[in-house]
């Protein structure tokens, strides 16, 4: 099993969600986050005071998938989230040891 962590532009969330649904992914967790990579921040001026805002708003998705589905899910995210401009985000993929469905105590891929 794999845990896919994707950092994307906030306005791309709907498209990514639909692409994942089309790929058969049934659940995800979404968090509003801030961060920066190569994309620069911006400057805000309030009367005489100037502030540089380094941390930009992004959305983080966490998706647990069976090994067989991982490649398809990653493909869906990358295709849907791409604008081709700097700041599109990143996808991290990490191995997942165990998944437990709390309601039924199911474990492993059946719990995803």
């Amino acid at each position: 099993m794999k845990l896919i962590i994707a950092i994307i532009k906030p306005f791309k969330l709907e498209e990514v969600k639909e692409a994942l649904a089309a790929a058969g992914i049934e659940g995800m967790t979404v968090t509003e986050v801030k961060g920066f990579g190569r994309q620069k921040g911006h400057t805000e001026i309030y009367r005489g005071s100037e502030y540089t805002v380094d941390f930009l708003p992004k959305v983080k998705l966490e998706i647990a998938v069976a090994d067989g589905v991982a490649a398809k899910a990653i493909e869906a995210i990358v295709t849907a989230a791409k604008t081709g401009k700097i700041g599109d985000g990143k996808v991290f993929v990490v191995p997942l040891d165990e998944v437990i469905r709390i309601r039924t105590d199911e474990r492993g891929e059946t719990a995803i």
Partner: protein
Amino acid sequence: MDQRVAAIEAYFQNADPSASLKVGPKDKDGNATIPAGLTTPAVGVAGPGHNAWMMTSAALVLFMTLPGLALFYGGLVRTKNVLSVMAQCLGLAGLVTILWWAFGYSLVFGKSFNSPFFGGSEYFFMKGVDSAPNTDYAAWVSQNVFAMYQMMFAIITPALIVGAIAERMKFSAVILFMTAWMFLVYFPLAHMVWGVTGLMNGVWNGTAAIKAIDFAGGTVVHMSSGWSALILCLVLGKRLGFGKTPMPPHSLVLCMVGTGMLWVGWYGFNAGSAVAADGIAANAFTTTTLATGTAAAVWALLEYIVRKKASVLGFCSGAVAGLVVVTPACGFINSTSAMWVGILAGAIPFFAVTKLKPLFGYDDALDTFGVHAIGGTLGALLTGVFTSGAVNSNLTGDAAKANGLDKLVAGGTVWVEQLKAIGITLALAVVGTLIIAFILKAAIGLRPSVEAEQEGLDLTDHGEEGYIYESKS
């Protein structure tokens, strides 16, 4: 019958209804008296139209502070201090109400001391202040309404100072400072400018030493609060992390809402200062609108020229600057002059706030000095430059003839008197604030602990938070 009709006609001109009855023998001062038995129901009662406008105006001026200024300032601070600013506005409304009832009204608008600096003791605890007009100030407005109207000015003035010292002065120190400040700075200054025996009341005091004019409070309200704000923020020191930590406004939406309320409320402040629903009020209403709209546009235009973006905070700042600068002038200038006032009001405070403050590095948190001190001083001077006898007959009234103001108006040299009034106001505000601030600093300290300031005054001074967002369960 003729005399009774004349008394009613005086209502339309906001004139003294008893004037037509004064046909009796002259008293020892040479003034005509009212013969025994001659009276009319128009004397000693309030006129309904004038009273209605002044009650409306009083409510409008209160609306400027609560919630106008509280929202304007509240939006400009950080989330953790939004309630502290609002609590200070509320606290001052309560404090000043009590002071005004007990001593303030009498010290400003009494005359028993026969002094250019303080009013009198005859109205202490508002004794005798009832629904009959006080003809020293208004022939047709109930004195209790007049007292409440003027109280709203006394409330907003110290509340303006809050902007410069926001986010870093403890609540107890704010309340004690303002209590002393009202007695040492506001009450004497308001009497000097508006009291019938006041030192600088050129329009109403025939023996005024300085023939200055201030229609709605350029010196009394804006210069006094603005210069005091600068001194207090210097004594207090900068906010922790000033210049290193970003301190952007937490909600320009609240700030914009507050600005709109200030603008609307300001009609009570400026047009209400005619203390009548008359032609002078109508002129003040018009000049206020023209100068404010122009100043808002000019400020934003300058922003666009300097950095290619017109900001909401820029429009708001320009509008408030326009309101401040036109305040002393609104009842004395014509509409053409109001446009010039608006242009200068958009430009000069803009440079004070965006260039002067970074140059000197003082932490005037919400720009009380840049807008109110610079704007108030500019307004007091421009009032002298643009004043026109054609728009306000009081500039050539009996008192103005007695002290010579009418000749200064005709000769265009009122600005010299305005400079004297500016000097006295500035000196009183600076010295008064220095004395109070240093005594308080030594006695109880002005600032919260470092931990409290970092945590935010909402929690540490008031035990509550402005925004609590909990996920739904």
